[in-house]
C-alpha cells in the first residue's frame, strides 16, 4: 500500500465517522410473515427433537429467508434457484408424505411456509433492489465507483442483470466482503442485511475500516436491529448512523440464525487419541472448517488455500476461475479445493501427474517409511536414533527421524550418510539406488509442480458444472488418470485453535 492509498483510507474512515453510515429499512410484508412462520416452525422442530429431515427443512427455510432479506435478488428467481439448484426441492419432497402425521404446530407452520414461498415466488422485484435504485445517483455519475457487497457468488449474475440498465453500470462492481479488507475501494458501498449480522459474521471491518466515503446498509424492517462498536475499547461508543431510519432493537435475532449458530463457536472433530510416530509435538495455530459433507479440516491461520470461484450463467453454477486466498478470508459458502487424503497442499497431486511411474516411486517410499515406523514402535525413538548414529547417520535426532518417517516428507537432506544408515537399519541396503533415484525424481517433480499447478487447475476446472457441490456439499473432480481432487463447500468456520502440526489439512469427521 502506498502512502497516498493509506491517506485515502484514513479520509474514508474520517468521512464515515463524521457523517455516519446511511441506513435504510425497507418493508417486505410477505417476507416478514414468512419469517414469523419460520420461527414458529423452527421452535416446534427443536422442541419436538424431530428427525434430521425436519431439521434440514428448518435450515432450508432459514436460508430462504436469509437470501431474500439480505440480498437484492429477485424473489421469484431466488426461490426457484434455492429449490432447484441448492437441494431445496429434495428436502421438501422427503417431507411431503410425512407432514400429515406430525405435531399440529409443526404441520401448521410448515403449510404456512409453503404458502408463503408461493406468494413470494410471484414477486419479481426485491424491495431492497428498489431502494438501491432510488439511492443511486441519477444520470452521469462523474466516475463514481459503486461497490455492492454480496457474499454468495451464485447470486452475482442475477444481481448484475438487475442493475444492468443503470447509468454507468460498468463503474459498478459486485464484490465479496473479504475483498474490501485490503484490496479494493470505491466511492460508495452498498451492504445488505441488518447491522447485527455484520457483528455475527465478524465483518465489522466493513464499517470500522471503510473502503469508501459513503456506506449504505439496506435491510428489511422486520429484522433491522443492532449497532456496531467503533473500537471495542469502550462498549458505549458506536459507529454513528445517520438519518432517521436508525435500527430498532428487536428480540434476540441470534437465536433463530441456525445457519450461523456455530459462528465463533468450537467445531469438534473425531480424532484418534493415539499419536503417530512422526508427530513432532509442535503445535500451530489453525482454524477449523466444517464442510458440507459432515467432514472438516484444520487450516493454518497464516496459510493460503485454493478456492473455486463460481458464476451462475444460464442457471447452472460453473467454475469461473481458481484463486489462492488467505485462510483468514475464507467464509461460509466458499468452495475450497483439496486433495482427498489431507492437505490443502495440492503440489503432490500435480507432481504425480508430471512424474512418470510416480505410483511405483511413492510405493517404494512407503516401504522404507513403514519399516522405519515399525522400528520406532518396536524399539522407541531414542534407541532408533542411537542405532542410526552407529550405522553412520550424521543428522539422526528424534525430531529428524520423526520427520523422515512422516509420509508427507520426501526424504532426508543427506542421502549419502543418513539414507545409507537408515537402509542398513531396516535391511534394505540393496534398494539404495532406486530409493535415491525416486527421492530425487520426486524433488524435481515437486519443484516443477508449483509452477504448473495454477495453469492445470484452471484448465481442469474452468466451466465445470458444480451443482453437486451445492446439493451434496462435496464434489470429486477427476482429470484423465490423474489423482482425484475434491471441492468442498464450507459450511462453518470455527475459532482459532492450537493443534498438532501434522493435523493441518487432514480430512476429519465431525463429532456430532
Amino acid at each position, binding site marked *: *500500500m*502506498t*502512502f497516498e492509498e*493509506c*491517506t485515502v*483510507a*484514513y*479520509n*474514508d*474512515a*474520517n468521512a464515515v*465517522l*463524521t457523517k455516519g453510515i446511511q441506513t435504510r429499512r425497507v418493508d417486505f410484508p410477505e417476507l416478514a410473515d414468512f419469517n414469523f412462520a419460520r420461527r414458529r416452525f423452527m421452535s416446534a422442530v427443536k422442541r419436538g427433537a424431530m428427525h434430521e429431515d425436519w431439521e434440514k427443512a428448518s435450515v432450508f427455510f432459514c436460508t430462504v429467508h436469509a437470501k431474500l432479506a439480505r440480498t437484492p435478488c429477485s424473489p421469484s428467481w431466488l426461490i426457484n434457484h434455492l429449490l432447484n439448484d441448492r437441494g431445496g426441492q429434495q428436502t421438501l419432497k422427503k417431507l411431503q408424505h410425512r407432514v400429515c402425521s406430525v405435531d399440529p404446530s409443526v404441520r401448521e407452520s410448515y403449510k404456512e411456509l409453503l404458502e408463503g414461498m408461493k406468494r413470494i415466488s410471484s414477486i419479481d422485484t426485491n424491495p431492497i433492489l428498489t431502494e438501491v435504485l432510488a439511492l443511486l445517483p441519477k444520470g452521469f455519475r462523474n466516475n463514481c465507483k459503486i461497490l455492492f457487497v454480496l457474499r454468495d457468488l451464485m447470486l452475482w449474475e442475477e444481481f448484475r442483470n438487475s442493475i444492468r440498465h443503470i447509468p454507468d453500470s460498468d463503474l459498478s462492481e459486485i464484490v465479496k466482503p473479504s475483498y474490501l*479488507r*485490503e484490496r479494493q475501494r470505491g466511492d460508495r458501498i452498498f451492504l445488505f442485511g441488518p447491522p447485527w449480522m455484520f457483528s455475527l459474521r*465478524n465483518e*465489522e*471491518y466493513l464499517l*470500522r*475500516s*471503510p473502503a469508501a466515503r459513503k456506506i449504505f446498509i439496506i435491510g428489511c424492517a422486520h429484522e433491522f436491529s443492532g449497532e456496531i462498536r*467503533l*473500537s*471495542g*475499547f469502550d462498549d458505549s*461508543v458506536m459507529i454513528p448512523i445517520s438519518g432517521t431510519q436508525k435500527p430498532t432493537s428487536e428480540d434476540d435475532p441470534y437465536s433463530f440464525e441456525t445457519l450461523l449458530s456455530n459462528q465463533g463457536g468450537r467445531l469438534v472433530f473425531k480424532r484418534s487419541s493415539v499419536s503417530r510416530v512422526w508427530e513432532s509435538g509442535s503445535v500451530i*495455530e489453525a482454524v477449523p472448517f466444517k464442510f458440507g459433507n459432515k467432514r472438516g479440516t484444520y487450516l493454518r*491461520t497464516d496459510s493460503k488455500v485454493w478456492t473455486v470461484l463460481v458464476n451462475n450463467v444460464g442457471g447452472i453454477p460453473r467454475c469461473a476461475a481458481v484463486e489462492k486466498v488467505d485462510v*483468514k*478470508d475464507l467464509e461460509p459458502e466458499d468452495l475450497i479445493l483439496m486433495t482427498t487424503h489431507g492437505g490443502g497442499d495440492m503440489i503432490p497431486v500435480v507432481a504425480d501427474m508430471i512424474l512418470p511411474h510416480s505410483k511405483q516411486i511413492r510405493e517404494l517410499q512407503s516401504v522404507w517409511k513403514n519399516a522405519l515406523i515399525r522400528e520406532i514402535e518396536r524399539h522407541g525413538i531414542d534407541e532408533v536414533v542411537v542405532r542410526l548414529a552407529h550405522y553412520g547417520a550424521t543428522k539422526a535426532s528424534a525430531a529428524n527421524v520423526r520427520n523422515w518417517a512422516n509420509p508427507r516428507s520426501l526424504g532426508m537432506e543427506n542421502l549419502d550418510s543418513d539414507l545409507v544408515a537408515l537402509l542398513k537399519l531396516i535391511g534394505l541396503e540393496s534398494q539404495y539406488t532406486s530409493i535415491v533415484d525416486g527421492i530425487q525424481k520426486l524433488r524435481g517433480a515437486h519443484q516443477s509442480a508449483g509452477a504448473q499447478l495454477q495453469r492445470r487447475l484452471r484448465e481442469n476446472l474452468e466451466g465445470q458444472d458444480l451443482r453437486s457441490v451445492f446439493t451434496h456439499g462435496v464434489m470429486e473432480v477427476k482429470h484423465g488418470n490423474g489423482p482425484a481432487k475434491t471441492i468442498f463447500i464450507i459450511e462453518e468456520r470455527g475459532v*482459532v485453535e492450537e493443534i498438532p502440526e501434522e493435523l493441518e489439512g487432514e480430512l476429519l469427521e465431525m463429532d456430532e
Partner: protein
Amino acid sequence: MTPPETAFDLPLWAKDLISSGERFYDLIHNHEDRRLTVALCLPRVEFSAGFIGLGILKNALEQVLQSNEPQLRELLGSMVSYQDPKGRVVVGILELRENEKTYSILEPINVSKSLKPGAVTQRRTLLKPREYGKVTALPMNFNPNRQIRSRQIEKVISHNQSILELSRILDCELTHLQSRPLGVLFNVFGNLSRIRSEWSQSLSKDKNVILGEVLRPADEKDCEDSHRCRFFPVHSEIAENDSCIEIIEGSRALPDQLSSTRSLNRIILLARNAPCYKDCVASLRESYSLCKGDATGFNIENSKPIISLAFFHK
C-alpha cells in the same frame, strides 16, 4: 514555465501519529518509575509505526539538544554542515577568530571557469551565537574532493532531502542527528516486508521524503553503525529487560507479547481491518483491567479515525 513547487505537508492522521510518539516519549520521561501502555485503534496499520517512531525520535533529539551546550570548540578544524536561515546548506571547515570570539565556516575552494585563469573564490559564513546549535559534524570520512559514483550521489541527495523536508515538517533540526548518536530508541514488531517497503518509499511525489532515511532501522545496509530502531517479526519473543520503547502491531501473538512486556513501555497498534482485531482488543482489555491508572491527556485531537487508550501498567 514550470509551475511553482508547493511545499509538501503531511496529512492530519500522520501528524497525529507523530504527536502520539512525542507525547508518549514525554510521558515516559516524566514518569520514569512507571510503565506506560498506549493502544491506538486505527483504520489501517500501514505507516503508523514509522510516524510514531518519528515523534519519538523528534523528542529524543530535542532532549539531547537541550541538555548539551553547543560544544563548537570540539568541532574546530573539522568538516561541519550548517543550514543558514535561507535554507542553504553550508559545508566547510569550522574556524574560530580568537580576537573577535566569532565562529565561521570556511567553504572549500571553488574554481570557476568564468574567472581569470588561476583565480579562485572561497566563501566564509559567519555564525551567530543563536545558530551554534545548528552546526553538526560531518562524518570523519567526509572529503569534498572525493570522486563518488552517481548512485552514491543520489543516495546522499535523497538522504539530505528527507532530513531537510522532515525537519521542516516536524519543526525540528534533524540535521543534528548526524553528530549526536541517540542509540536504539524503539523496536518495531510487525510485518517486516511491509514495513520495509513503507519506510523505503517516498511520502511525496516530487521530493524524497523517506522515513527510513531518518529512522535508520538496524537491518539496513548503511545503518548498521548508526541505527535508531530495530525490526522484529511479529511472533518474536521480546526480551523482558529491553530498555527501548516497544511498538507492537497487533497480531494473534499479542496476548503473549503483552505478558512478556509487562515491565516495558509499549505502543500497541490495532488495525480495525485485521482478522484478529477482536481478539487483540479482548487481550488489551484484559491488560487494562489490571492497570495501575489511566494516563490522562492522550486524546488524539484532529483525526477521528484514530482512537487511543493509554494507561500505566506498572
